[in-house]
Protein backbone atom coordinates (compact mmCIF):
# COMPACT_ATOMS: atom_id res chain seq x y z
CA UNK A 1 0.00 0.00 0.00
CA UNK A 2 2.77 2.41 -0.82
CA UNK A 3 0.93 4.36 -3.45
CA UNK A 4 -2.00 5.87 -1.59
CA UNK A 5 -4.20 8.10 -3.75
CA UNK A 6 -5.52 11.42 -2.51
CA UNK A 7 -9.12 11.68 -1.38
CA UNK A 8 -10.04 13.34 -4.68
CA UNK A 9 -8.55 10.48 -6.68
CA UNK A 10 -10.03 7.41 -5.04
CA UNK A 11 -12.45 5.97 -7.55
CA UNK A 12 -14.20 2.67 -6.96
CA UNK A 13 -11.91 1.18 -9.64
CA UNK A 14 -8.82 2.33 -7.76
CA UNK A 15 -10.26 1.11 -4.47
CA UNK A 16 -10.93 -2.30 -6.07
CA UNK A 17 -7.39 -2.44 -7.44
CA UNK A 18 -5.81 -1.65 -4.07
CA UNK A 19 -8.01 -3.69 -1.76
CA UNK A 20 -9.84 -6.14 -4.05
CA UNK A 21 -7.77 -9.18 -3.18
CA UNK A 22 -7.31 -8.34 0.50
CA UNK A 23 -11.05 -7.86 1.01
CA UNK A 24 -11.79 -10.81 -1.34
CA UNK A 25 -14.09 -8.63 -3.41
CA UNK A 26 -15.87 -9.97 -6.47
CA UNK A 27 -17.74 -7.36 -8.54
CA UNK A 28 -21.25 -8.40 -9.54
CA UNK A 29 -20.76 -6.41 -12.76
CA UNK A 30 -17.23 -5.57 -13.78
CA UNK A 31 -17.14 -1.80 -14.50
CA UNK A 32 -20.57 -0.80 -13.16
CA UNK A 33 -20.05 2.25 -10.94
CA UNK A 34 -16.26 1.90 -11.17
CA UNK A 35 -15.83 5.56 -12.11
CA UNK A 36 -17.62 6.76 -8.95
CA UNK A 37 -15.53 8.57 -6.34
CA UNK A 38 -15.38 7.21 -2.82
CA UNK A 39 -16.59 10.22 -0.88
CA UNK A 40 -16.18 9.43 2.81
CA UNK A 41 -13.61 7.84 5.13
CA UNK A 42 -16.44 6.10 6.99
CA UNK A 43 -18.71 3.20 6.16
CA UNK A 44 -22.45 2.78 6.61
CA UNK A 45 -24.55 -0.19 7.75
CA UNK A 46 -27.90 0.49 6.06
CA UNK A 47 -29.97 -1.74 8.41
CA UNK A 48 -31.96 1.07 10.04
CA UNK A 49 -32.62 2.75 6.70
CA UNK A 50 -33.91 -0.51 5.25
CA UNK A 51 -36.45 -0.78 8.11
CA UNK A 52 -37.73 2.67 7.15
CA UNK A 53 -35.74 5.16 9.23
CA UNK A 54 -34.06 6.95 6.34
CA UNK A 55 -33.73 10.41 7.95
CA UNK A 56 -30.08 9.90 8.82
CA UNK A 57 -29.16 7.54 6.04
CA UNK A 58 -25.51 8.12 5.16
CA UNK A 59 -25.61 7.58 1.40
CA UNK A 60 -22.21 9.21 0.82
CA UNK A 61 -20.49 6.28 2.50
CA UNK A 62 -19.69 2.79 1.23
CA UNK A 63 -22.67 0.61 2.20
CA UNK A 64 -21.92 -2.67 3.97
CA UNK A 65 -24.65 -5.30 3.73
CA UNK A 66 -23.79 -7.83 6.46
CA UNK A 67 -25.73 -10.72 7.81
CA UNK A 68 -28.15 -8.38 9.66
CA UNK A 69 -29.15 -6.52 6.50
CA UNK A 70 -29.35 -9.56 4.24
CA UNK A 71 -31.34 -11.76 6.65
CA UNK A 72 -33.67 -8.83 7.29
CA UNK A 73 -34.21 -8.29 3.55
CA UNK A 74 -34.78 -12.03 3.05
CA UNK A 75 -37.43 -11.97 5.78
CA UNK A 76 -39.47 -9.47 3.74
CA UNK A 77 -41.92 -10.24 0.96
CA UNK A 78 -40.74 -9.48 -2.59
CA UNK A 79 -42.68 -6.21 -2.73
CA UNK A 80 -41.51 -5.08 0.72
CA UNK A 81 -37.90 -5.82 -0.24
CA UNK A 82 -38.33 -3.91 -3.49
CA UNK A 83 -39.76 -0.97 -1.53
CA UNK A 84 -37.09 -1.01 1.22
CA UNK A 85 -34.19 -1.03 -1.26
CA UNK A 86 -35.88 1.44 -3.61
CA UNK A 87 -36.19 3.91 -0.78
CA UNK A 88 -32.47 3.94 0.07
CA UNK A 89 -31.52 4.14 -3.62
CA UNK A 90 -33.53 7.36 -3.91
CA UNK A 91 -30.38 9.01 -2.55
CA UNK A 92 -27.27 8.38 -4.67
CA UNK A 93 -25.42 5.29 -3.46
CA UNK A 94 -22.13 4.70 -5.26
CA UNK A 95 -20.80 1.46 -3.80
CA UNK A 96 -22.08 -1.47 -1.74
CA UNK A 97 -20.44 -4.61 -0.39
CA UNK A 98 -22.30 -7.77 0.61
CA UNK A 99 -20.19 -9.71 3.12
CA UNK A 100 -19.87 -13.21 4.53
CA UNK A 101 -20.37 -14.90 1.16
CA UNK A 102 -24.09 -14.09 1.32
CA UNK A 103 -25.99 -13.88 -1.97
CA UNK A 104 -27.02 -10.37 -3.04
CA UNK A 105 -30.82 -9.99 -3.31
CA UNK A 106 -31.85 -9.57 -6.95
CA UNK A 107 -33.45 -6.19 -6.15
CA UNK A 108 -30.10 -4.92 -4.81
CA UNK A 109 -28.40 -6.00 -8.04
CA UNK A 110 -31.09 -4.34 -10.14
CA UNK A 111 -31.02 -1.04 -8.24
CA UNK A 112 -27.22 -0.99 -8.30
CA UNK A 113 -27.25 -1.42 -12.08
CA UNK A 114 -29.92 1.13 -12.74
CA UNK A 115 -28.21 3.78 -10.60
CA UNK A 116 -24.67 2.98 -11.81
CA UNK A 117 -23.60 1.95 -8.31
CA UNK A 118 -20.80 -0.57 -7.80
CA UNK A 119 -21.75 -3.81 -6.04
CA UNK A 120 -19.24 -6.29 -4.64
CA UNK A 121 -19.57 -9.65 -2.95
CA UNK A 122 -17.05 -10.73 -0.33
CA UNK A 123 -16.55 -14.01 1.48
CA UNK A 124 -15.00 -12.22 4.45
CA UNK A 125 -16.68 -11.61 7.81
CA UNK A 126 -18.17 -8.16 8.21
CA UNK A 127 -16.18 -6.66 11.11
CA UNK A 128 -12.65 -7.60 9.96
CA UNK A 129 -13.57 -6.44 6.46
CA UNK A 130 -14.69 -3.08 7.85
CA UNK A 131 -11.41 -2.76 9.79
CA UNK A 132 -9.27 -3.36 6.71
CA UNK A 133 -11.48 -1.05 4.66
CA UNK A 134 -11.30 1.83 7.14
CA UNK A 135 -7.51 1.36 7.44
CA UNK A 136 -7.24 2.31 3.78
CA UNK A 137 -9.87 5.04 3.92
CA UNK A 138 -8.19 6.61 6.99
CA UNK A 139 -5.01 6.93 4.97
CA UNK A 140 -6.70 8.21 1.86
CA UNK A 141 -8.69 10.84 3.74
CA UNK A 142 -5.91 11.73 6.21
CA UNK A 143 -4.83 15.39 6.25
CA UNK A 144 -1.57 15.61 4.36
CA UNK A 145 1.21 17.99 3.58
CA UNK A 146 4.68 17.88 2.14
CA UNK A 147 7.91 19.12 3.69
CA UNK A 148 11.23 19.85 2.02
CA UNK A 149 13.79 17.74 3.79
CA UNK A 150 14.85 14.15 4.29
CA UNK A 151 13.28 11.45 6.42
CA UNK A 152 15.63 8.84 7.84
CA UNK A 153 15.09 6.15 10.44
CA UNK A 154 17.91 6.51 12.95
CA UNK A 155 18.07 4.09 15.88
CA UNK A 156 14.38 3.40 15.28
CA UNK A 157 13.39 7.08 15.42
CA UNK A 158 11.90 8.87 12.42
CA UNK A 159 14.28 11.80 11.97
CA UNK A 160 13.21 14.65 9.70
CA UNK A 161 16.21 16.67 8.52
CA UNK A 162 15.29 20.12 7.24
CA UNK A 163 17.16 23.27 6.24
CA UNK A 164 17.78 25.50 3.27
CA UNK A 165 18.82 23.87 0.03
CA UNK A 166 22.55 23.28 -0.42
CA UNK A 167 23.13 23.32 3.34
CA UNK A 168 24.25 19.69 3.29
CA UNK A 169 21.11 17.71 4.07
CA UNK A 170 21.63 15.06 1.44
CA UNK A 171 25.33 14.59 2.21
CA UNK A 172 24.70 14.15 5.91
CA UNK A 173 21.87 11.75 5.14
CA UNK A 174 24.22 9.70 2.94
CA UNK A 175 26.53 9.52 5.92
CA UNK A 176 23.68 8.16 8.03
CA UNK A 177 22.93 5.47 5.43
CA UNK A 178 26.62 4.56 5.37
CA UNK A 179 26.33 3.94 9.10
CA UNK A 180 23.41 1.58 8.69
CA UNK A 181 20.40 3.88 9.05
CA UNK A 182 17.52 3.79 6.59
CA UNK A 183 16.21 6.32 4.08
CA UNK A 184 12.50 6.86 3.67
CA UNK A 185 12.55 9.99 1.51
CA UNK A 186 14.93 12.63 0.30
CA UNK A 187 14.17 16.17 -0.83
CA UNK A 188 10.41 15.98 -0.45
CA UNK A 189 8.66 14.13 2.35
CA UNK A 190 4.92 13.48 2.13
CA UNK A 191 3.40 13.51 5.59
CA UNK A 192 -0.11 12.43 6.62
CA UNK A 193 -1.74 12.52 10.02
CA UNK A 194 -3.21 9.09 10.61
CA UNK A 195 -4.93 8.45 13.94
CA UNK A 196 -2.92 11.10 15.74
CA UNK A 197 0.53 10.24 14.42
CA UNK A 198 2.54 11.69 11.55
CA UNK A 199 3.45 9.18 8.88
CA UNK A 200 6.04 10.17 6.29
CA UNK A 201 6.85 8.64 2.94
CA UNK A 202 8.50 9.58 -0.31
CA UNK A 203 7.11 9.70 -3.79
CA UNK A 204 6.72 6.03 -4.63
CA UNK A 205 7.23 6.76 -8.33
CA UNK A 206 10.69 8.16 -7.59
CA UNK A 207 12.01 5.23 -5.57
CA UNK A 208 14.74 6.14 -3.11
CA UNK A 209 16.43 8.63 -5.35
CA UNK A 210 18.76 11.31 -4.04
CA UNK A 211 20.34 14.25 -5.76
CA UNK A 212 23.96 14.74 -4.77
CA UNK A 213 25.34 17.97 -6.16
CA UNK A 214 28.17 17.17 -8.52
CA UNK A 215 27.16 13.53 -8.90
CA UNK A 216 23.58 13.97 -10.03
CA UNK A 217 20.89 11.45 -9.20
CA UNK A 218 21.77 8.31 -7.27
CA UNK A 219 19.50 5.41 -6.33
CA UNK A 220 20.30 4.59 -2.74
CA UNK A 221 19.16 0.96 -2.75
CA UNK A 222 21.65 0.21 -5.54
CA UNK A 223 24.51 1.22 -3.26
CA UNK A 224 23.38 0.04 0.12
CA UNK A 225 20.81 -2.60 -0.69
CA UNK A 226 17.40 -3.19 0.77
CA UNK A 227 18.54 -2.68 4.36
CA UNK A 228 19.09 1.04 3.69
CA UNK A 229 15.60 1.90 2.53
CA UNK A 230 12.13 1.92 4.03
CA UNK A 231 8.71 2.78 2.60
CA UNK A 232 7.18 4.69 5.49
CA UNK A 233 8.02 5.83 8.97
CA UNK A 234 6.47 7.82 11.79
CA UNK A 235 7.95 11.32 11.93
CA UNK A 236 9.05 11.82 15.55
CA UNK A 237 11.89 14.32 15.69
CA UNK A 238 13.19 17.16 13.53
CA UNK A 239 16.68 18.53 13.17
CA UNK A 240 16.89 21.80 11.27
CA UNK A 241 20.30 22.62 9.81
CA UNK A 242 21.04 26.34 9.80
CA UNK A 243 23.85 28.32 8.31
CA UNK A 244 26.16 29.41 11.11
CA UNK A 245 27.11 33.08 11.19
CA UNK A 246 28.29 35.46 13.85
CA UNK A 247 24.99 37.33 13.69
CA UNK A 248 22.91 34.20 14.03
CA UNK A 249 23.40 33.05 17.61
CA UNK A 250 19.81 31.97 18.05
CA UNK A 251 20.58 28.30 18.58
CA UNK A 252 20.43 26.57 21.92
CA UNK A 253 23.68 26.52 23.91
CA UNK A 254 22.51 24.43 26.80
CA UNK A 255 19.94 21.98 25.48
CA UNK A 256 17.48 23.39 28.05
CA UNK A 257 15.15 24.85 25.48
CA UNK A 258 13.04 22.28 23.65
CA UNK A 259 11.75 23.83 20.45
CA UNK A 260 8.83 22.22 18.70
CA UNK A 261 7.60 22.30 15.15
CA UNK A 262 3.96 21.94 14.32
CA UNK A 263 3.08 19.68 11.41
CA UNK A 264 -0.62 19.09 10.68
CA UNK A 265 -1.45 20.21 14.26
CA UNK A 266 0.93 17.72 15.83
CA UNK A 267 3.98 19.05 17.67
CA UNK A 268 7.29 17.30 17.23
CA UNK A 269 10.49 18.26 19.07
CA UNK A 270 12.91 20.23 16.94
CA UNK A 271 16.62 20.86 17.37
CA UNK A 272 18.51 23.51 15.40
CA UNK A 273 22.09 22.63 14.51
CA UNK A 274 24.31 25.37 13.08
CA UNK A 275 26.38 24.21 10.15
CA UNK A 276 30.06 25.10 10.03
CA UNK A 277 32.81 23.84 7.73
CA UNK A 278 34.44 20.86 9.33
CA UNK A 279 31.47 19.88 11.47
CA UNK A 280 30.64 16.21 11.15
CA UNK A 281 26.91 16.52 10.53
CA UNK A 282 26.30 12.80 10.36
CA UNK A 283 27.75 12.34 13.81
CA UNK A 284 25.78 15.33 15.13
CA UNK A 285 22.53 13.94 13.75
CA UNK A 286 23.17 10.59 15.44
CA UNK A 287 23.96 12.32 18.74
CA UNK A 288 20.81 14.47 18.42
CA UNK A 289 18.70 11.32 18.01
CA UNK A 290 20.38 9.59 20.96
CA UNK A 291 19.73 12.68 23.05
CA UNK A 292 16.09 12.57 21.95
CA UNK A 293 15.93 8.88 22.97
CA UNK A 294 17.27 9.79 26.43
CA UNK A 295 14.66 12.54 26.84
CA UNK A 296 11.93 10.09 25.79
CA UNK A 297 13.13 7.81 28.56
CA UNK A 298 12.79 10.64 31.06
CA UNK A 299 16.47 11.63 31.27
CA UNK A 300 17.03 15.31 30.59
CA UNK A 301 20.77 15.75 31.11
CA UNK A 302 20.90 19.57 30.62
CA UNK A 303 18.05 19.94 33.12
CA UNK A 304 19.94 17.79 35.64
CA UNK A 305 23.12 19.84 35.16
CA UNK A 306 21.18 23.10 35.50
CA UNK A 307 19.45 22.00 38.72
CA UNK A 308 22.78 20.92 40.10
CA UNK A 309 24.42 24.23 39.21
CA UNK A 310 21.59 26.29 40.71
CA UNK A 311 21.91 24.35 43.97
CA UNK A 312 25.65 24.99 44.05
CA UNK A 313 25.13 28.70 43.41
CA UNK A 314 22.50 29.02 46.13
CA UNK A 315 24.69 27.11 48.63
CA UNK A 316 27.54 29.45 47.84
CA UNK A 317 25.34 32.48 48.43
CA UNK A 318 24.16 31.12 51.78
CA UNK A 319 27.77 30.53 52.82
CA UNK A 320 28.77 34.07 51.88
CA UNK A 321 25.81 35.51 53.73
CA UNK A 322 26.75 33.58 56.84
CA UNK A 323 30.24 35.04 56.64
CA UNK A 324 28.99 38.63 56.28
CA UNK A 325 26.05 38.26 58.65
CA UNK A 326 27.46 40.55 61.34
CA UNK A 327 27.00 43.52 59.02
CA UNK A 328 23.28 42.84 58.67
CA UNK A 329 23.51 40.78 55.51
CA UNK A 330 21.41 41.07 52.45
CA UNK A 331 17.70 40.43 52.34
CA UNK A 332 16.73 37.14 50.75
Amino acid at each position, binding site marked *: MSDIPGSDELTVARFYKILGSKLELVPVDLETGFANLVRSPDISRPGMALTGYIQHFLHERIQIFGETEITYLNSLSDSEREFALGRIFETPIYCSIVTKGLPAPSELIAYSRSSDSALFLSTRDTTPLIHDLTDLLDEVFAPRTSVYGSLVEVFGIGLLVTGKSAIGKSESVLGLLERGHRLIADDRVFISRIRGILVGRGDSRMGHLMEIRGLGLVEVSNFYGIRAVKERQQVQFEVRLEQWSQDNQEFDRTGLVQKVNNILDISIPQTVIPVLPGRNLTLLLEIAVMNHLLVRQGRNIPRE*IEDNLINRILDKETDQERRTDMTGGRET
Partner: protein
Amino acid sequence: MTTKMVEVINQLGIHARPAAKIVRNASMFDSHITLTVDGDTVNAKSIMGVMTLAACRGTMIEVQADGDDEREAVAGIVQLVLDGFGED
Protein backbone atom coordinates in the same frame (compact mmCIF):
# COMPACT_ATOMS: atom_id res chain seq x y z
CA MET B 1 41.84 46.45 26.47
CA THR B 2 38.61 47.45 28.23
CA THR B 3 37.73 46.30 31.74
CA LYS B 4 34.68 46.84 33.91
CA MET B 5 33.40 45.43 37.21
CA VAL B 6 29.77 44.43 37.58
CA GLU B 7 27.74 42.81 40.38
CA VAL B 8 25.42 39.84 39.84
CA ILE B 9 21.96 40.90 40.99
CA ASN B 10 19.56 38.17 39.92
CA GLN B 11 18.41 35.69 42.56
CA LEU B 12 19.74 32.47 41.06
CA GLY B 13 23.10 33.88 39.92
CA ILE B 14 24.75 32.74 36.70
CA HIS B 15 23.20 29.33 36.13
CA ALA B 16 22.96 27.72 32.70
CA ARG B 17 20.40 30.05 31.15
CA PRO B 18 22.22 33.31 32.01
CA ALA B 19 25.49 31.64 31.04
CA ALA B 20 23.98 30.88 27.63
CA LYS B 21 22.91 34.52 27.30
CA ILE B 22 26.41 35.74 28.08
CA VAL B 23 27.96 33.33 25.58
CA ARG B 24 25.42 34.18 22.88
CA ASN B 25 26.10 37.88 23.40
CA ALA B 26 29.88 37.48 23.57
CA SER B 27 29.96 35.37 20.41
CA MET B 28 28.60 38.27 18.38
CA PHE B 29 31.86 40.20 18.95
CA ASP B 30 35.28 39.60 17.47
CA SER B 31 37.14 40.61 20.63
CA HIS B 32 38.58 38.09 23.04
CA ILE B 33 36.38 38.42 26.12
CA THR B 34 37.03 37.05 29.60
CA LEU B 35 35.20 36.99 32.91
CA THR B 36 37.15 36.90 36.16
CA VAL B 37 35.82 36.05 39.61
CA ASP B 38 38.19 35.78 42.58
CA GLY B 39 41.21 35.33 40.31
CA ASP B 40 39.46 32.64 38.27
CA THR B 41 39.39 33.70 34.60
CA VAL B 42 37.20 32.06 31.92
CA ASN B 43 36.49 32.65 28.24
CA ALA B 44 33.11 34.40 27.89
CA LYS B 45 32.43 32.52 24.65
CA SER B 46 32.59 29.13 26.36
CA ILE B 47 29.43 28.03 28.13
CA MET B 48 31.18 25.38 30.17
CA GLY B 49 33.72 27.96 31.31
CA VAL B 50 31.08 30.51 32.33
CA MET B 51 29.11 27.81 34.16
CA THR B 52 32.15 26.75 36.21
CA LEU B 53 32.21 30.23 37.78
CA ALA B 54 28.94 29.34 39.54
CA ALA B 55 28.63 33.05 40.35
CA CYS B 56 25.93 33.72 42.96
CA ARG B 57 24.07 36.94 43.67
CA GLY B 58 26.40 39.60 45.03
CA THR B 59 29.46 38.29 43.20
CA MET B 60 31.64 40.92 41.56
CA ILE B 61 32.67 39.99 38.03
CA GLU B 62 35.46 41.59 36.08
CA VAL B 63 34.51 41.76 32.40
CA GLN B 64 37.49 42.26 30.13
CA ALA B 65 37.71 42.46 26.35
CA ASP B 66 40.55 42.89 23.92
CA GLY B 67 39.93 43.64 20.23
CA ASP B 68 38.40 46.05 17.75
CA ASP B 69 34.95 45.97 19.34
CA GLU B 70 36.09 45.64 22.98
CA ARG B 71 34.08 48.64 24.24
CA GLU B 72 30.78 47.40 22.80
CA ALA B 73 31.53 43.87 23.97
CA VAL B 74 32.12 44.88 27.59
CA ALA B 75 29.16 47.27 27.59
CA GLY B 76 26.87 44.55 26.19
CA ILE B 77 27.79 41.96 28.80
CA VAL B 78 27.74 44.44 31.69
CA GLN B 79 24.25 45.50 30.64
CA LEU B 80 23.07 41.87 30.58
CA VAL B 81 24.31 41.32 34.11
CA LEU B 82 22.82 44.63 35.33
CA ASP B 83 19.48 43.64 33.80
CA GLY B 84 19.61 40.45 35.83
CA PHE B 85 19.49 38.51 32.54
CA GLY B 86 15.81 39.32 32.38
CA GLU B 87 15.24 37.23 35.53
CA ASP B 88 14.10 38.17 39.06
